[in-house]
């Protein structure tokens, strides 16, 4: 049997106002980014609870990226500032538990940055692919 090429599953939480529109723009401009990036639209990047990140890993994600408006541009004034602190603390904790730090990322993508969105996803997917499957935060029950 031929081994299937390993393609990491990426979950991208995108804020409704900037990054989701950015992803849209990337699509409209026919920019390529991996099909294994699954976008979940959230009202604001700050909606992303640490539990969401862990649950994404549980359900089989190999990498989780959170995209929001650039600091200062939040539709709700300050949501992404909270995201920034929260995710800094969470990512540092995941790293502390020995989970590869390359599997998590926060990126600010505006509605006009379709190219940045595509480039970010390509880069992130590549880094995650280099790590291989997520073994350290997996739930075997979900992998059968």
């Amino acid at each position, binding site marked *: 049997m031929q081994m299937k090429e390993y393609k990491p599953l990426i979950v991208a939480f995108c804020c409704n106002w900037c990054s989701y529109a950015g992803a849209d723009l990337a699509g409209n401009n026919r920019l390529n980014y991996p099909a294994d990036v699954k976008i979940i639209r959230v009202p604001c990047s700050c909606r992303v609870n640490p539990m969401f990140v862990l649950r994404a890993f549980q*359900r089989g994600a190999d990498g989780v990226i959170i995209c929001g408006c650039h600091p200062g541009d939040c539709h709700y004034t300050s949501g992404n500032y909270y995201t920034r602190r929260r995710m800094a603390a969470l990512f540092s904790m995941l790293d502390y538990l020995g989970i590869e730090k390359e599997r998590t990322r926060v990126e600010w993508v505006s509605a006009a940055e379709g190219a940045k969105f595509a480039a970010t996803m390509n880069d992130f997917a590549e880094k995650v692919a280099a790590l291989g499957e997520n073994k350290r935060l997996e*739930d075997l029950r*979900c992998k*059968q």
Partner: protein
Amino acid sequence: MRKCSLNSINSVFAEIAKAATLYLPVDGKDGSAVYTKWEEGKVWSNALNTVRSPKDFFFPQTENLMAFKTAGKNIEIIDTRSESEDFVIFGVRACDVKSFEILDRVFLSEPVDTFYAARRAHGVIVSVACTKPSETCFCGTFGINPAEPAGDISAWKTETEVFFRANTEKGVALLSKIEGLTEECTDEAVDAQKEKISAIMKKLPLKDVTTDAFGGGKTMDYFNSPAWDELSQSCLGCGTCTFVCPTCQCYDIKDFNTGKGVIRYRCWDSCMYSEFTRMAHGNNRLSQKERFRQRFMHKLVYYPENNDGLFSCVGCGRCLAKCPISMNIVKVMKKIGGENK
């Protein structure tokens, strides 16, 4: 009675492990003993007992019952059980051996719990007598003799030797497997040890704890006692006592959606938890006092009422050592029982 030298016990373990998986208490990283699968290099712990009770072997904290595949409106039930394999639990103390009898009466009474029964049928218990009971031990209260543990094989450990006596057919079969590594001997050394232990038993601080005031039919005598308020006032409502207890057997059945199907599993539950009895229309035990009372009334009154006076506590002392606020069954028995002599 057969014996082997303590130095050669590892070859006995190796022999047993050839035919069945062998578990025994091994010191963990934090210094407390844990039942661990034996393999070359694992050393039998000198600790009196493990933090977790051996009930896990028959009634694991989590166990899958079945799986479901759903497609549209259809459901398919998949039996996920695999054939259990034979295993030996070595070094079970007298109190914990007794706890199996208490669990048996729940799980093996009609209708039989087949998950438990299968494990029970495949497990062989090698008990070992205690030589240095802890201050928290009160197995004597429940008529358990730590020097004369039950189980398929009883063992006694001295400074230099280990003695074995088979009690059941399973025990005889296991003992015959290690026949070449052991030799026939008299009861002398074991009798001497028993005597020593019975002298220690008389010195234990909790030797006077008594069950006299408890037993079946006493529900209404104690249920409304004002002492429950006082005893339960600082209970945190955690599940430590229930989870370290060798006789607590309440469980929950839950579904886990894996995204590809549903696994139905059973896991330990605690009557100390606030949502244990919560249902759609309300909760019949609203305060921690009621939950706290349930746990002790069950052990001291309800269970004996349904099981010929057998108490659902073996005096292992785990809850005494582990309760975050040091509230435990001994204090309850002294307070509630003492007021109602």
